């Protein structure tokens, strides 16, 4: 197990480094120089940039400077949000994005696994077919359609839920989280159903059945864990999907999360901000993949050897 984790980490760290360096050099490649955007920069930002990247030094030294500053959590100044550093914006937006994403993945797991389990038990029956059909539809629901649609229906027409901003209590979270969780839960339901269907055909299930165990016990003790392996391997891409979806949801529902800063940064060519967020996202996703690997090993001990 430890070997597996170390090996994953050994690929994760270079991957991250490559992303950082690639994004850095990409930025330096930008036509017309990265920092002469449409708007002239004020001298303070100019100076800060000069200081942050050492623009007068050789390129590799600038890259090294950037990486070493990143290690200290210094992402440089933001070009759009003049009064903030990128680190400050991240500190502000990250909790909101993480809350959204975390809740969405929990909801999707609960909902998806339950639905998949239910369908697998009723394999071939109407309930199974209906659930699988709904799951396919759910996977094809982009957040940028469901988000506005939910806002229109529950917010503007029924007036049940807040349409914009964070507000008091948790009500503001409901629609964004549901819009985010829908496609992921559909995918998880399908994976759970397919995983169970193939596991329930395997020999060890017949062995358990030959022991006279109850069907429930067979399902939960012998069937479920290996059936969830595909779900675990989907968690990495799901996390990436959720972070991406969060960008839309935060824009649609006007939430001051990381995604919205990212879009603003991208639209306004705020390089330090975009770079910072991409790096952070990459790190998050790599971390999440590592976590998924751990779950893998628990679900199926054969994977522990890697």
């Amino acid at each position, binding site marked *: 197990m430890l070997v597996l984790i170390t090996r994953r980490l050994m690929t994760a760290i270079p991957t991250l480094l490559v992303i950082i360096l690639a994004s850095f050099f990409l930025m330096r490649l930008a036509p017309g120089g990265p920092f002469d955007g449409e708007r002239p920069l004020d001298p303070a930002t100019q100076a800060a940039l000069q200081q942050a990247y050492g623009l007068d030094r050789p390129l590799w030294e600038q890259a090294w400077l950037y990486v070493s500053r990143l290690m200290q959590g210094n992402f440089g100044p933001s070009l759009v949000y003049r009064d903030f550093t990128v680190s400050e914006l991240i500190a502000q937006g990250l909790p909101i994005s993480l809350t959204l994403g975390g809740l969405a993945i929990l909801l999707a797991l609960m909902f998806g696994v339950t639905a998949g389990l239910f369908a697998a038990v009723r394999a071939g029956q109407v309930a199974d077919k209906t659930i699988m059909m709904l799951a396919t539809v759910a996977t094809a629901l982009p957040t940028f359609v469901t988000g506005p649609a939910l806002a229109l229906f529950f917010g503007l027409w029924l007036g049940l839920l807040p349409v914009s901003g964070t507000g008091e209590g948790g009500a503001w979270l409901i629609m964004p989280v549901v819009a985010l969780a829908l496609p992921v839960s559909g995918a998880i339901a399908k994976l759970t159903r397919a995983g169970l269907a193939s596991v329930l055909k*395997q*020999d*060890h299930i*017949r*062995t*358990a*059945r*030959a*022991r*006279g*165990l*109850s069907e429930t016990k067979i399902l939960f*003790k*012998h069937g479920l*864990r*290996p059936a969830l392996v595909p779900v675990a391997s989907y968690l990495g891409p799901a996390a990436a999907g959720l972070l991406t979806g969060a960008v839309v949801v935060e824009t649609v529902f006007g939430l001051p999360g990381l995604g919205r800063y990212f879009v603003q940064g991208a639209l306004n060519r705020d390089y330090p901000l975009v770079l910072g967020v991409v790096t952070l996202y990459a790190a998050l996703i790599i971390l999440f993949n590592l976590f998924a690997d751990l779950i893998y090993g628990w*679900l*199926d*001990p*054969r994977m522990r050897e890697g």
Partner: protein
Amino acid sequence: MSLYEIRNMAVAIAGEQLVEEVSLTVGPGQCTAIIGASGSGKSLTCLTPFGLTPGVVSGSMLLDDIDLGSADARHLRDVRRRLAGFIFQQPLTALTPHLTVGAQLQEATMQAGAARPSRRELARKLERVGLSRPDERLDQFPHRLSGGERQRVMIAAAIAHSPKFLIADEPTSALDASLRAEIMELLDELRTEEGLGMLLVSHDLASVEGHADQLVVMDKGRVVESGPAGAVIANPAKDYTRRLIAATPRLQEPISAFSRPGELLLETDCLGVDFDRPGWRRGKIRAVVDASIIARQRESLALVGGSGSGKSTLGRAIAGIGPATEGEILWQGAQLPERRKRSLDMRRLIQPVFQDPVASLDPQWQVQDIVIEPLRYLRPDLTKVERNEMVRQALSAVALTEDFLTRLPASLSGGQAQRVAIARAIISAPQLLVLDEATSALDPLVGAEILKLLSQLQVENGLSLLFITHDIAAARRLCHRIAVMEEGRIVETGNMQAVIDDPRHPATQKLIAAS
């Protein structure tokens, strides 16, 4: 008084009648064996009365005076829980991968309502089935154990709740030849000690001989013949049984004379094959080490060994479809280079035939294209008409009609597919065939026919054969000489009969004992 009795049982799946009019009995402490080819309905016969297949069963089945025919699903579950134990074919997959051996054994012990066993008790159960270091095994996951060890765990779990009746569905078929005898002996021992009744299912007559008290021969869903095992084998009443017995190779049977070998054809000189370890790890896996064999014209050499002994790797190196990293392969004294460097003229000399007949044929190609493939590159001098004529000849040489020309592999039976593969191998008129377990995946009757075909082709075409197998008895029907492999090394070579009469190396002795 019988423990288990079936009278006039029939099994249907989705309305189709797959098993009919089966009757058999198993006495306490006795073993009844069902023998049949794949698709004969033997597994359905033994598993369906216990609700372990989707089949619908009718007739009378009494286990310990409980009528299984009238029992509902819950009742059947209860019967499985208390009275019966099951052993299945695939020890690799029959254990739950994410539960430790101890957890599964504990579940099996408690299935009939026994109290939670102590660790010592569980360890003792493993010791009983002949597993070394039983205490350590309890905490291991199944994938850490070898095939034989896993099958022992299966057996320990099957008898852990002290059942009265044991059902073993091909318990040794997936195991290495040398392990089969050990597992069968273990089952015999447990059966007599515990007074268990056992229903044994196998496709291989030789494997149940000497272990079964009663024999039931099945074909196409019906019982062909049944009775005391010794009497049925010594004195078969039905033609099918006779053919089955004749098809099953035995070390004691008389064999017809072979062709006279000619000059030296092939020689390997200290041949070695190393593979890189998977991944980035350093080091090599030595699959074949210092292998030196010879084959003469019109001679058959058996290359015999257990799985992982390196016999297939050696065969592939010789056939030029696998790497050879050390030593030399010589053809009539001239060097045959390694895999990719082999010229078309050299390739024409040696052709392979493989174990799995269906996987040997490209599923997208018609039989005629499959058979013609070697001519396309090995005989570019031929015209299209000549080629087509040769395909017809090759098919008739393997006793297939011209109707097969346009068939797709999916529509062929195992035996037909293997005949097509042999036709492809002989069409370019090679001098040596490398037969990699060419009869092992086939049903006994079909396998015997293929064996006969090969020996006939050898005589008619003056072919040399390298017959790679785990089955000495089958090899004895075809081969002049034998080379035994173990862990990548040739450990014994010699004249076939001489080696069988006086095996020197323990590996050879084990293989002979298992036949």
